[in-house]
């Protein structure tokens, strides 16, 4: 590469003369992505920001109780839901690295929620929770003779269920990542600790955690950013209901879009940007090294 680069150092030459054939090819090969990026990222984002330019949209949003509720729900989803998920993933990654034939088989099955599409499985959960016909309330009735709760009609329960569905779906992925992190820790350290008679907790506290902490924090932040865009878990389970009380920002934007309130849809997204962009910036710093 050093040979091909030297020609480009000549200043003042016309652009075509300064580029080596390799660099011309480089530009040609980069063009398809640049076109995709310009047409389907730059233009939509610019257009969206332009749509969200009127201050009146933000005033309307501010007075819309559904928006406030959606913002709170999103925070609950991210702060509580993701942290619970990541703690379980951290715990299970320790379980799955244990060498047993049956655990190996279990880990193959454990990936299923991530490997299958979310639509049928979320709808399956939705049917299980159906108050009249769902299997959960049928079983409750069978064993207690009493009617089960109307699961998705209570906003708090419905949101909890949406979080549970989200965890069900994405737990395998994060567990897998954390397993890779655990496997990277040198086994000698654990053997030495074993000899010294360290307890389970001490091994975790002084060996596992220090080497996994960066990975764990990165994963948590990444999961938070992505969960902001988790439309399916809420939309397919509760549809934002009852009474639009379980919306998150991802479904709220689509709700405004469906109501033909495009500027509100964009404004609600723009409101989330001050929280998203620092996270994105942080992640980019971490990953683009």
């Amino acid at each position: 590469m050093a040979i091909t680069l030297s020609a480009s150092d000549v200043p003042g030459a016309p652009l075509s003369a300064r580029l080596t054939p390799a660099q011309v090819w480089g530009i040609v090969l980069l063009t398809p992505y640049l076109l995709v990026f310009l047409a389907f990222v730059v233009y939509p984002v610019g257009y969206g920001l332009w749509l969200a330019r009127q201050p009146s949209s933000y005033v309307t949003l501010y007075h819309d109780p559904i928006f406030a509720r959606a913002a709170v729900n999103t925070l609950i989803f991210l702060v509580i839901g993701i942290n619970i998920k990541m703690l379980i993933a951290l715990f299970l990654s320790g379980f799955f690295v244990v060498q047993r034939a049956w655990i190996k088989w279990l880990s193959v099955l454990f990936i299923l929620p991530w490997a299958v599409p979310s639509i049928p499985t979320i709808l399956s959960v939705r049917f299980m929770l159906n108050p009249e016909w769902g299997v959960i309330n049928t079983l409750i009735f069978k064993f207690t003779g009493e009617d089960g709760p109307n699961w998705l009609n209570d906003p708090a329960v419905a949101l909890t269920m949406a979080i549970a569905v989200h965890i069900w779906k994405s737990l395998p992925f994060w567990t897998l990542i954390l397993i890779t992190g655990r496997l990277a820790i040198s086994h000698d350290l654990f053997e030495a600790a074993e000899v010294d008679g360290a307890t389970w907790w001490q091994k975790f506290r002084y060996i596992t955690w220090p080497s996994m902490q960066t990975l764990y924090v990165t994963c948590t932040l990444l999961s938070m950013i992505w969960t902001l865009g988790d439309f399916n878990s809420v939309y397919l389970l509760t549809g934002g209901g009852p009474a639009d009380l379980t919306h998150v920002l991802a479904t709220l934007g689509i709700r405004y879009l469906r109501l033909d309130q495009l500027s509100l849809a964009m404004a609600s997204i723009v409101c989330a940007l001050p929280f998203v962009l620092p996270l994105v910036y942080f992640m980019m710093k971490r990953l683009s090294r």
Partner: protein
Amino acid sequence: MKPATLRLPGLRLPTLRDVGTEARLLLIGIPVFIWTMVPIYHMFLFAISPKEDAFSGKLWPDHPTLHNFEIVFREQHYFLRDFYIQFWNSLVIAVAVGALTLFVATAAAFSISRLRVPGGRLVMNLALFTYFIPAAFLAVPMYRTMGNYGLLNNHWALILAMVTIASPYAIWVLKQASDKLPVELDEAAIMDGATTLQIFRLVYIPLMMPSLVAIGTYAILLAWNEYLYAFLLLSNDTEITLPVALGNFLAADDSPWELLMTTGFIYALPPAAIYYAFKRYMVGGLTAGAVKS
């Protein structure tokens, strides 16, 4: 775990401590198994149950049947009248997204990593930035953009949107992988008089095969599984993909659950099969990128 006493291989009896450890592992393993399988098993149970049996709450239907599959495959229900064409739409779109993403991302990764094109790093960062913007946030402006381009209700709208979403990660993973290939390979090829395209075709592509398989699979699965964009960008019954059709089942109050679950089961099989078939590549290729921290 260390054996407490040394006995002949294969004859070691479990000690009390072994039993305790095993019990604790099972105490974690069994709930994990149930938690993972319940929604999937529930779906499967619906698919093999006759309509009357499906709601009984039994663990196994009294009369398991494949009748629901027959109804789906013969399109014998109002909701299923376009099943084959919707399946075909899903397939075509997924394959097109896989192929286009591979093309766009491989070219870009080669250009950035091997040819070190000026500005390559900036493009990489812009792509990464897109990768981190939640897809649902981009959906609203994307919907309007496709409208402006006159692509709504056209398969190209979904294909291009999915390529946009899939390529940043694809480029990033491929760039990481190609950075690991030794520079000497390219230098040797240049010495032998190879042109840039020959290096790309004869040196780069063969060496990158495992990552390319992983990325192709990733893009195909992403497109096959996508609901939100498909539901926004496509709406005619003969244009939509299967997940949108599944979502439409919910529009009716008396939607036939057993048929919805059967169709969902059929829809979920190909990605699961692909995932397990390519697991080796998927886990190696995809987590290698995500773990770097």
